[in-house]
């Protein structure tokens, strides 16, 4: 009962890129349909958790290395704060919307919302994956 069955393994390997694609779709269309940074980020992290549960933590570590995921999480937080300060150099307030608005209804519109959604999505997704890696590796290599 240690290993997962063959059907689950093959099915997960085939399904994994579509779950990632769905997560990226939810992040980038956050201002046009239900979704946004947090929802898409959780699905992004859940795809990595699913792969780690089925294949084992050693093989998943070779593809999604823990130090790179941790670096993305830290840099994402920094980019959020720097985006807030970059409006102040042009004379606006902190975290105010200074980019031009495009056509209503297309993806590159609504000013700073798309950029903040992408930042939050990557930060939450990699944060959940890092929590999962730490919890599993603490108990396994005793």
């Amino acid at each position, binding site marked *: 009962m240690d290993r997962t069955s063959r059907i689950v393994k093959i099915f997960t390997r085939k399904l994994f890129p579509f779950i990632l694609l769905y997560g990226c779709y939810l992040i980038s269309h956050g201002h046009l349909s239900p979704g946004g940074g947090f929802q898409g980020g959780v699905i992004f992290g859940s795809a990595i958790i699913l792969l780690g549960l089925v294949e084992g933590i050693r093989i998943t570590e070779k593809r999604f290395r823990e130090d790179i995921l941790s670096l993305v999480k830290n840099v994402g937080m920094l980019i959020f704060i720097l985006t807030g300060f970059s409006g102040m150099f042009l004379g606006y307030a902190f975290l105010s919307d200074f980019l031009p608005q495009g056509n209503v*209804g297309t993806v590159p519109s609504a000013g700073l919302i798309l950029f903040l959604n992408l930042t939050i999505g990557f930060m939450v997704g990699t944060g959940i994956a890092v929590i999962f890696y730490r919890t599993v590796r603490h*108990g396994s290599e005793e």
Partner: protein
Amino acid sequence: MNGINISIVVILIGIYGILTKRNIIKMAMSLYVMNSGVILFFVSIGYVAGGEAAIFESGAPLSKILMVDPLPQAVMLTTIVIGLGITALALALAIKIYDDRKTLNAEKLLEN
């Protein structure tokens, strides 16, 4: 049987779980159940009778239609993520307590 009644029942289930269970992990899970009840309560308050979802359609005329209240929903998005952070940290602390004291019973942990 609307959302407000059910959310009050979920809050009461969460409070019962915190009061009577002795396992630390079950207490952390009951805290998260209570968090979910509070979120459901706040979202159900902002319901307007006959209103639609808080998203404009792309091709429809963007005029005055009756919408539900979008402000509690925006605040509760933040609350969900904070609840996730609290539960992750509480369970990590439970793992460290088990490594040190070899038990997860709250009464035995208080005995020293």
